[in-house]
């Protein structure tokens, strides 16, 4: 007997004594599921939602800038200057308004900072970059979380992992209040990375230390529509 048949057979043996009336409905059968008793929708209006997200990001030591669509490029420029970044990688699909995007493997220059579009950089090459700029798929205000789904402007997972500085651009419309709302918006067939603050560890006497293997600095630019 194969291990597969044996393990599944054991599961069936273990469950054979169950009362068939108990337990949840099996997969694929209409369950007539009642609405969950836990919260599945937030109640905050959009400005309050952004305030909550900004507060929760800062609470877990992300840097936050708030701007309007018209000032996005200036805000990016200011963030990179403050960081003293020289070489920054961009995922395909990240066209900054007013700058456009260089072709894969090519670079553009913004105030002396080289912005290089990823064309298949190796892990070692990414390790030489000062930072990365990405967009995100969704942000969760209550937990201060941004989620990347490898969509346009976000790129493959290594891009937001290896460089030590991650600058993430979030549109107001991408912000939800609660974790279940984010899960409902996301697509399981894409690789997802949920990020809440910079890389951290509490492994030494449960003291939180920021900066282990992921980016040691996370900066978020919140783009508020109607203000620019």
């Amino acid at each position, binding site marked *: 007997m*194969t*291990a*597969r048949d044996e*393990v*599944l057979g*054991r*599961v*069936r*043996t*273990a*469950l054979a*004594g*169950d009362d068939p009336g108990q*337990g*949840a*409905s*099996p*997969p694929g059968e209409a369950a007539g599921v009642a609405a*969950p*008793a*836990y*919260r599945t929708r937030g109640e905050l209006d959009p400005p309050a939602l952004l305030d909550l997200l900004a507060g*929760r990001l800062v609470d877990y030591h992300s840097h936050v800038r708030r701007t309007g669509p018209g000032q996005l490029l200036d805000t990016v420029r200011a963030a990179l200057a403050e960081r003293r970044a020289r070489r920054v990688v961009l995922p395909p699909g990240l066209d900054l308004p007013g700058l456009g995007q260089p072709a894969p493997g090519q670079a553009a220059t913004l105030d002396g900072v080289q912005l290089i579009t990823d064309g298949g950089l190796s*892990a070692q090459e990414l*390790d030489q970059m000062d930072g990365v700029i990405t967009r995100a798929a969704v942000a*969760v205000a*209550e*937990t*201060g*979380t941004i989620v990347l789904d*490898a969509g346009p402007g976000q790129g*493959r*997972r*290594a891009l937001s*992992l290896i460089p030590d500085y991650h600058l993430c651009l979030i549109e107001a419309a991408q912000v939800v209040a609660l*974790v*279940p709302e984010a*899960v*409902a918006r996301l697509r*399981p*067939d*894409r*690789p*997802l990375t*949920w*990020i*809440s603050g*910079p*890389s951290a*560890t*509490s*492994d*030494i*006497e*449960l003291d939180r*230390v920021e*900066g*282990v*293997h*992921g980016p040691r600095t996370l900066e978020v630019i919140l783009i508020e529509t109607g203000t620019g």
Partner: protein
Amino acid sequence: MSAPTFLGLPTAPRGVGHLRGDEPFPVAARRALADTQLRRNLGKATRTIRAKRAAVVGELPDWEELRDAGQAIKAGAMAHLDRYLEQLEEQVTARGGVVHWARDANDANRIVVDLVRATGATEAVKVKSIVTDEIGLNDALAAAGITAHETDLAELIVQLGHDRPSHILVPAIHRNRAEIRDIFLREMGDVDPGLTDSPAALAEAARLHLRRQFLSAKVGISGANFAVAETGTLCVVESEGNGRMCLTLPDTLITVMGIEKILPSWDDLGVFLQLLPRSSTGERMNPYTSMWTGITPGDGPQQFHLVLLDNGRTAALADQTGRQALHCIRCSACLNVCPVYERVGGHAYGSVYPGPIGAVLSPMLTGVEDNASLPYASSLCGACYDACPVKIDIPSLLVHLRARHVDEVADSRRVPSPEAVTMAAASWVMASPARYEAAQRGGRAGRVLGRGGRIRRLPPPLSAWTSARDAPAPPAQTFRQWWRAEHGGTGPGVTQ
């Protein structure tokens, strides 16, 4: 050697992995209690994390509703586990992954060793994974000439210290900063001799030490926090980014998961991604959570293997009362609130699953006989039940396992444990009012043994009970005697 069975289903085999201690809990606990450094480290760490957890749990108005949902989802997953496993296999396979089935630790180790060998690699980077520790995977890889590098900071401390994990979340909780600095200086080889013992400096040393390994790794090995049957999605929750490195950079990813980690539907993640981080690290959300479904061309590993492990889980599933131990999401909240764990630490439990949930889970996976002292390693105070994010009734399960052990011993007519003898004797005495009263009179003689209201050594055969416990010295007058003096008659509740 094969282990005993429950309802004919095999438990985790002996001689492989880390589910059984070398000595019974009371013996190991006595040594741990004598280690004042350990008790200081544990006391500080568990106090800190209890406060953090309480704060972030208090922020959510629907925490109890989330716990109820978590419990219901897990119960549903277990009740139809065969169908969800088949569904998971189908989804992972459809997205380019390869699913392997392992009856036990030996199967799983053999599968992983063969998979690593097939890549030609002699090294692998590992995400913190208790299940791979349960099966002793690193030992099996080493025996095959493959070096497994632990990359979680605490697991690295444990590995470099030639030590065992002592906590589910913080495996090196028994080490303080000065001890960690000494281990790094001694073992890392490439570390600055001027390394200080500040946690930031120690984390930086680990970052530099592991960077090269991450960037050149060919094989990554992980566990899984959740696997969604509906979509075939795997999920790993972490803090440092070492998980992302192992899950993203290697060409080949091998994930080992216990079959109980399954969630039926995608939406279930919305519940568990709230329950786990708040219960575990005491954060609103942990820094990084990775989810992947099979293979994504051009992004991450292009070979993905999922190993589904039984190793005693189906034996636990067959115990309809005990089954809920399989709902555990390994948050470690029950460890941090447990007065026993706080004093003895994780090593005393002998298993990779320590603390209250370990005292239930380990005997269920191995058969109670092989971890017979663990169900007694509790005062049944109930703090673990209150803290559990999926409402596992750990105190009731401990009592259930005590009863199961007594029954199993009686069935097999083996020499029973001291606890089983004591409980059987207590049952015989308490079943008859006359015997009970006579025993109480006899017990008053125990006052001569007591000092300060405690008896540290009872005479044989009861000495077996007090070898690991103090017994309260009996009062001068029994309740029945007091009742008769106050009210006359034969005593409360005695009608014959």
